[in-house]
């Protein structure tokens, strides 16, 4: 299952709720303001690191670039994808869930 998260974890509870309701093996894609959660050293990164033991986390490259976040600043193990990669993730997973 693909979960998308489009909110900053510092403003809203969407990422936290997503992690609580996603099973092992899930794919999680951070888009829009959701990409702020991917910055290494941020308070939210601990939550993400824990989740990444059993889930794959992706971040949308165009949204990282818009916000001035260099991919080198991300939590280790996060994969950066473009819009085509987003489509691929949606096609590859059996279902999709948008955490707004």
């Amino acid at each position: 299952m693909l979960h998308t998260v489009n909110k900053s974890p510092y403003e809203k509870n969407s990422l936290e709720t997503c992690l609580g309701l996603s099973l092992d093996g899930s794919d999680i894609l951070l888009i829009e303001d959701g990409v702020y959660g991917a910055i290494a050293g941020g308070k939210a990164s601990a939550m993400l690191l824990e989740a990444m033991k059993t889930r794959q986390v992706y971040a949308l490259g165009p949204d990282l670039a818009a916000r001035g976040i260099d991919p080198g600043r991300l939590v280790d193990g996060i994969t950066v994808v473009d819009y085509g990669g987003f489509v691929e993730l949606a096609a590859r997973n059996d279902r999709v869930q948008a955490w707004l």
Partner: protein
Amino acid sequence: MSEIKKFMYINRRAPYGSIYALEGLEVVLIGAAFDQDCCMAFVGDGVFQLVRGQDSTQTGMKNFSPAYKALGDYDVNRLYVERESLAERGLSEDDLMELTWEDEDDDWAEKPSIRVVSREELARLMEEQDVLLNF
């Protein structure tokens, strides 16, 4: 209009995910023409507005971050950034754009506009204002 009021524009939203940051900046630039005493505060996700190196080309959205560099020319030269908000988000002052203004009382010396302040300092600054506008 002879009154001079203290305006503080408080920015709590990240850019691009929503338009509040951009339309907030438009208010500040228009407001600068009114000869009031104005400053800006960046709190919470608002600190992300000032991150350097923004490039929105691939999203098709307008990169409005260069407009912050114009603020100094409009005499908006006090941009308070909450220290705690930066730290929580894994950022430091080095991650922010260099924003400056020229001080005409000091031989046009170029001075930094961004002032990193503590939460407590910011709370006190808010109490000194007449009008608080949130974006």
